[in-house]
């Protein structure tokens, strides 16, 4: 029973841990720049594996918490929540291309979705503060996080190619018995 509770709570706890970790004063040259994008990485990876353990409302709350902790006065609170929700929706809608395929495709999928996330956050921040914000630091963060993805993602949740019938009900997507892609 405790076992099941632990497994249910794992993605949420890991996400909250990374949200708090974005504030840690780690001074590693490239890694510490990328800390704000790590929660997005966590959301992506767990949406691949077990999206039912990351309910939408929880993602909203975690995104708002991340914005509260990270942003200074003037940053839009809720932009990360929007990003997380969109990432999860995009992953769940495209499971066909992301589950049961070689890891490289998952990496490419992450690159695309992370790019979308960074663009959305940059756009919303620029709109809300009504100033032209230099996109270079954001691009640097993006470049580092897509390099880090293969190191971090397998530690979080492995999404091995397997028969869809092995997958819990809500993660099954549109596969019918015996199919591996639909």
């Amino acid at each position, binding site marked *: 029973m405790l076992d099941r509770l632990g497994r249910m709570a794992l993605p949420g706890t890991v996400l909250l841990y990374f949200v*708090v970790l*974005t*504030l*840690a*004063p*780690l*001074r*590693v*040259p490239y890694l*510490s*720049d990328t*800390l*704000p994008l790590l929660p997005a990485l966590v959301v992506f990876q767990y949406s691949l594996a077990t999206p039912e353990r990351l309910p*939408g*409302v929880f*993602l*909203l709350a975690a*995104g*708002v*918490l991340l914005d*509260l*902790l*990270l*942003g*200074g*006065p*003037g*940053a*839009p*609170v*809720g*932009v990360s*929540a*929007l990003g997380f*929700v*969109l990432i999860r*929706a995009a992953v769940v809608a495209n499971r066909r291309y992301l589950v049961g395929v070689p890891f490289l495709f998952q990496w490419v999928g992450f690159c695309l979705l992370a790019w979308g996330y960074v663009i959305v956050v*940059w756009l*919303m*921040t620029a709109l*809300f*503060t009504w*100033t032209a*914000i*230099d996109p270079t*630091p*954001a691009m*640097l*963060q993006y470049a580092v996080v897509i390099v880090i993805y293969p190191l971090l993602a397998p530690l979080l949740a492995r999404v091995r190619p397997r028969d869809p019938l092995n997958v819990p009900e809500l993660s099954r997507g549109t596969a019918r018995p015996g199919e591996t892609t639909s």
Partner: protein
Amino acid sequence: MAIRDDFEVVASQVRVVLQRFALGLLVVGAFAAMLIGKADTVLVENARVLALDLASPALETIARPVAYANRVIADLKEFASLREENARLREENSRLLAWQTAARRLENENDRLRELSQFREGPEASFITARIVGDSVSAYVRGALLNVGRRAGAATGQAVLTGEGLAGRVAEVGENSARVLFVTDVNSRLPVLVERTRERAILAGDNSPQLRLNLLQGVAGVQRGDRIVTSGDGGSFPVGIPIGEVVQSSEGHIRVRPFTDFSRLEFVRVVNYGVTGLVTASPQTAPAPPAGQKVR
């Protein structure tokens, strides 16, 4: 019984509708959060302060191992450039010794002149030493989290200094934590003086490592190497706190390099000079420590 069945039917219909429009509702919820944040900044500030207060103890417990890791990494980086670093330090040392003599002479002269004119000193500053327990490394905000809050006497608008110069000011204060807005942040605007010519200007950040100097009367007087200090205009900070030096003064674009090394911040001083003119309507007022007394 019929009522309960009807209720169950309606409930299941509502659930079906919710599931169909789940994504839309979540997106609307996120936008609503953004709009609320835009409309009611006091609520957002309070929420942010609460979130920081919750996160601060967790961050403080990992602050020491993280500082140790930072030191190890900095050591590794320094091994690569030991020799040049040594030469540079030797040269800087001899320069500073020369300055020390000059400073002593000036100090004596100052004391004698003050006695002569019976100059009355302003109230002394009180300061609080704080450790940085969190970095705001977002691409859009430059700031840090301190482990002192209202209980230690910090308040919004206070200057945050390092040994080298001004680092920023306190933007928000909780019970046990405070958030600092660095001078390099987009929202930071300081009234400053060019030390040599005493020309007034505004020093603005734009989230890049260098600051922008906007002169009020043209770029004529500013040269490379000029020091920029606070001017005390608008009752923000007192006069004379060093901020940075000019590194590039082409037409229309004057860039200032801040003295503070933001990549190595560990301890800072929060100074309360008793002037908080930059922050007009702050809902929190800290109990002012008696002037001249060291707080913690």
